[in-house]
């Protein structure tokens, strides 16, 4: 299995762990308030910002750990260059990821159209963000397996 395939698997697992872990920590603190109150919007705003921050920091740490572990176990470090095939795979993965996120945004807006509370919209946005990240890594894994 190539470095890129292993990295995709690690990214998939870390996305699930980070989002799942942070949600398990933060969601029990969901405020008991009116559906359209300022408290609810404040909660979701904080949730998004902290989740993004936690994801960035955790991703950096996981990438470093993976790189070290991979070098120690296989003697295979991070590839020194990215070539045209890497760019093609990256673009295709980003395209698939964008499709999923766009669909998520449309669903989130649709939930407002059918008079669902803002919490539903925020949950759909979070899920679509996670799904798009997973699709990106799964696509990259699939393309590297297939050859392009």
């Amino acid at each position, binding site marked *: 299995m190539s470095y890129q395939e292993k990295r995709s698997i690690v990214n998939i697992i870390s996305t699930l762990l980070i989002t799942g872990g942070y949600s398990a920590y933060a969601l029990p603190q969901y405020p008991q308030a009116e559906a359209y109150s300022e408290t609810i919007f404040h909660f979701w705003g904080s949730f998004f910002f902290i989740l993004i921050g936690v994801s960035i920091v955790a991703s950096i740490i996981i990438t470093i750990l993976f790189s070290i572990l991979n070098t120690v176990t296989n003697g295979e470090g991070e*590839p020194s*260059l990215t*070539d*045209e*095939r*890497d760019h093609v795979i990256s673009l295709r993965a980003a395209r698939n990821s964008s499709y999923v996120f766009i669909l998520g945004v449309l669903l989130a807006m649709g939930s407002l159209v059918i008079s669902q509370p803002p919490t539903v919209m925020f949950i759909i946005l979070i899920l679509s963000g996670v799904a798009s990240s997973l699709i990106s890594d799964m696509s990259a894994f699939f393309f*590297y397996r297939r*050859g392009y």
Partner: protein
Amino acid sequence: MDKLFIGNHIRKLRFEHSEMTQEQLAEKVGVTRQTIVAMEKGKYSPSLELAFRIAMTFQKPLEAVFFVEKAT
């Protein structure tokens, strides 16, 4: 429109050139070894620039390295 398969003789040409390794060819044309592997397996069609780089490395015309046929 018929789908085309772009094949190549890279593996054969490597052996004809002092058994050049995939790693050596990759280094000469500026790609990763995985890309050479994917091309040899017919899983990846290179850009025109990369195709010319490979042909120039083997000092052959493009059509001596790559060929095209209708995909089955």
